[in-house]
């Protein structure tokens, strides 16, 4: 998957979790949770959805690497390169 494709997947997963999510003014380098007003339960859903779709096991200590859209893409790029 390319970086753009990974970005689209993340946004699609978030849109599916929260139908009111507004991406218009989203800053890719700022924390997703604050900008989208997501809580830790929503955040867990991103991790669970990645596991369900791509069989990715993301250990809890690596969750901080999913903080921003850019850091998500950086973290997932090597893991999804063959998808």
């Amino acid at each position, binding site marked *: 998957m390319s970086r753009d494709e990974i970005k689209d997947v993340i946004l699609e997963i978030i849109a599916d979790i929260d139908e*009111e999510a507004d991406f218009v003014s989203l800053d890719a380098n700022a924390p997703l949770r604050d900008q989208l007003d997501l809580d830790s*339960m929503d955040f867990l859903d991103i991790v669970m959805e990645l596991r*369900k779709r791509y069989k990715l096991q993301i250990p809890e200590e690596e969750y901080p690497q999913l903080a921003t859209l850019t850091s998500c893409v950086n973290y997932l790029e090597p893991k999804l390169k063959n998808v």
Partner: protein
Amino acid sequence: MAAYQLLIIGGGLSGIAAGIRAARFGLKTLIIEQHGLPGGLNSFYLRQGHLLETGLHAMTNCAPPGAKRAPLNRLLRQLHLSRKQFDFHEQIGSEIRFAGRSLLFTNDPAVLEAEIGRAFPEAIDRFRQLKQTIAAYDPFAVAPWRSSRQFLAEHLRQPELADMLLLPLMVYGNAEEEDMDLGQFVIMFRAVFEEGFFRPGGTMREFLDLLVQQYRAFGGELRYRCPVEEIVVEDGRVTGVRLEAGEVLTGETVLSTAGIPETMRLSGWEGERERYVGRMSFMETISLIPQSQAASLTRDRTIVFYHNGPRLRYRRPEDYLDTSWGVICFPEHFSGLEPAELFQIRVTNAASYPLWKALPAEVYGPVKQQWTEAATIASEEIIGNYRPSIVYQDSFTPVTIERYTRKAEGAVYGSGVKIKDGTTPWPNLFVAGTDQGYLGIVGAMLSGITIVNQHILR
């Protein structure tokens, strides 16, 4: 290999919510329900063509669609349900009525504050302070038990006001007698006085249908009329359940929503079962009268919480029923609801399980009839007369509640002692629902969700 990744005992609100979470993320999940209908404590039944709801007077934690952090909206996101699928109706207004004193409240917290200013002018500043203390309190932080009564006594210095505030919060969500843990008080204060009451349009049947549909859409399986006889334990782990019919179902993990005492019995979990048996149970009387006869009754209230005695005694009564305090609910009095063919009045009073349980079968009916009458008469003192107009009336006791829900001694709010982390002596058996900590419809569903998130999805 086990047949299921997750077996859930109980198709009530916590079990269905837990099931939706697990199935949504691909776990092969089976909910096993003893009854022929879903809902557990918040279900419905049909009698002579009338659909009667159990449990539900109102849902708490009302929230507007945009409030993302509100418990109701978090819950719907977790279940992947859209607010748009639901037709929610807010309460018109409710009343706490004590002998000679009355406080109204709506879903606008300013109304209660103004009412307290009117009825207890000497305590209004202290009430405002109390609200600030509650706003700053974190009820989810691990903390030792603290007395709400003492907290209120110190903050309000007005015993009657303290009783008036406690009545709705206790009767809608306190498993303990006489007093309430401060954390639970804060949760209930926000749920009732700050967020407020609402209900879904239609009946509990449609609401439950929507949840079950969602569960099935994610691939979850559900079996009715399958009472569990035993939670099977081998070599320190749970391997599944055996049904009363003899069938054994295997599961990698089992989640029980049957309450701690019943889960102990099913699994052979050694411990002080009595410690976990709640003492608060209720009898509910439902009366139907023609709409034309409802006009003379209290019109503009959704729920009336009444109390006639000197001090509030929230505890198991000495007699079959305590009609000196109780709750009267008009399920139609929510904004925007169309009147049904018949007007419904629901009356709830504290009841003594041991007395009801000890009744021989041949006198149970007549005694129930006698107390149904007593509850109705007590409610007439508050809302006006309606006995001559009753076209249908039914009531259920703590024994009925226990039979249909397996909540030990019909304790609708479960154990006074909660197992907040949901764990048991076995690493793959968990408990969720009223005995885990959260109460009410929204609370029970959050309980199922939280336990699955913490222990099963990770």
